[in-house]
């Protein structure tokens, strides 16, 4: 699902607002819309010594009321829509929604009566983090992108291995 132009525009302005208002302290709430529990494990590891999210000024908060960023995993189970909506609405603006993992990006489950198969169907997504699961490093990069601290590389990537000879370096 590719978002329309104005959506990306609002997302950009939102991120600028985030970067301006939250500076280097941003609070994250996670939301599991039916993941297989692996994305959650990776998210938990973000606060582990190896990655130590806090050094970058990110903090987890259990209360969406205090959260600026919603880290959504899972294929958006329809039975969970109410909770997902409520969580999103409980957050004060400006807020960023990050779709995390292949499930959330529509990779694993096709849309069917059980799942939307894509978090974008339920919540307005600002940042997409691919991977099954996205490793903590990928999550860190995603968070950096979300607050506009890191430049995103994806547009530049072609996924074309240039020359037949050893391009796998």
């Amino acid at each position, binding site marked *: 699902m590719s978002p329309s132009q104005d959506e990306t525009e609002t997302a950009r302005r939102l991120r600028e607002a985030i970067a301006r208002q939250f500076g280097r302290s941003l609070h994250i709430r996670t*939301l599991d819309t*039916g*993941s297989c*529990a*692996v994305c959650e*494990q990776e998210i938990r590891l973000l606060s*582990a010594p*190896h990655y130590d999210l806090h050094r970058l000024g990110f903090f987890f908060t259990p209360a969406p009321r205090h959260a600026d960023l919603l880290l959504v995993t899972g294929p958006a189970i329809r*039975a969970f829509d109410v909770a997902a909506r409520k969580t999103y609405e409980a957050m004060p603006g400006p807020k960023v929604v990050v779709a995390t993992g292949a499930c959330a990006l529509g990779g694993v489950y096709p849309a069917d009566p*059980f799942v939307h198969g894509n978090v974008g169907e339920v919540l307005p997504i600002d940042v997409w983090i691919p991977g099954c699961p996205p490793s903590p490093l990928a999550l860190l990069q995603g968070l950096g992108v979300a607050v506009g601290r890191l430049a995103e590389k994806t547009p530049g990537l072609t996924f074309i291995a240039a020359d037949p000879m050893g391009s796998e370096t």
Partner: protein
Amino acid sequence: MTTEAQAAQGTVTKTVPAADLERVTADLAKTPGARLADMFASDGEVPTLRLVWALESGYLVTETEIEGDQYPALSDVAPAAFVEECEIYEQFGIRPVTGKPLNRLMLPPHAGPARGVPGGRPPGPTLPRLGHPPARPPEDVHAPHTVGGQAFEFPFGPVRQVGAESLYYGLVTSGEEVVDVYLFTWHKHRGVEWRLRGRTPGQAMFFAERAEGLSAVAVGWAFAAAAEAALGVAPPPAAGRTRAVALELERLYNHAAATAALCQATGLTVGQSAAEIALERLLRVNAAAFGHRYLFGVVEPGGATRTPDTDVLRRDLPGAYGELRRAADALLGTNSFVDRLEACGILTAEQARRLGLVGPVARATGIAADARLNASAPQNGNPYVGHPVMVATAEDGDVFARFQVMLAEAAESVRLIGEFLDAGTAAECAALPVKGAAEAGGGSGLGWAESSRGEVLAWVALDEDGRITRARLRPGSVRNWRGFDDACRSQNVFTDIPIIEASFWLTAAGMAR
């Protein structure tokens, strides 16, 4: 199918007429050493009810054909059957003759019945089921706080603490102690079993190992073994050992994660950090050895698609495990930690037997049940035949006992990995016959594996061109969540609940599938 062929796969299938079902079940339930491991139905022109019993010698599957959407009440004679009774009712509309309520398990309340309840609420949107929908919706599990009583319900979830799965607790509490607990898991029901239908085992594996990502290898193995049994093929021994290495690595990182969760629940941040260092290093070992931190895509029906990097394992695993070992030693020397664990969330062996609990939870009550011990079917690629497992048990049945069992198992896993590496591993796959599944395996089979949460069972039935007609996945979580509320009710106060949850280390994903 021929019983020899089954015996060769460590499974015996018996047909039990509906009339005798209750008696047979009661007898088996009374037999020492017999445990009701699973119960499931499959629809056809006549729906069939299957009970899986774990015996010392292997597994016994009883098949019973159900007429008229009703079967004798089994949960009264074999309480372990209750969860499955509910699930079968939701999925197939078949219910035990008893008038007692059946609880909502997987389909959300607003799924609604196809036919509206007479005089009840109008039918909601119908979710696809494995069979036909129940006549009336199942009862919502809840413990209504009667005003006369002096307890209230503390709602918790489904959106809980950070990095926790969506799961709803109703904690009925008198303000201090926990009076009752009940769970909703339907927030996470993804209809995995429903999805597997019509797929080949190869395609289905992708979803099977995502049914419970933290036991991807165990679930995948059980599913693959079921498919192999159905097709009558056996994975090459080296591939079997590859699976075993992956399985033990999975056990290692899960126990490390459980340790970290225990520390978090007891508020011991330093311990949490130490355990998380171990966890992260173990995950990196997984990635380096198998190319995936959570060992996805290792198991494949017929064998294994990835071979571990033996040198990496030999080089890095001891160090990573050493972290866990040292963290555990320090934890066992920290009274503020141990005191919170002791006499918390106690389960008795009797409860564990009655509810058919599995894995460390059961072993912590002194029951030496372990699917790896099931040495039957060597030619079914069971690598543990050559490498017997020393099962760790404890007696007290409290959180501390579970913790000790986990630590002992971690040590055992490292030893086993060494043995398997010495014996040699490889990424080989036996070719699966696509056509004519019936000749070799009879088109249906049972598979099992011991995840870090306990025994995983899978049962697969294939049609003529090798596509799945019914696949049953039963991760360990399904069984042990059933024991969780009992553990919580055993004289605990509010703040013990997270500790108990961490010591069970279950996933809602596995429960809801």
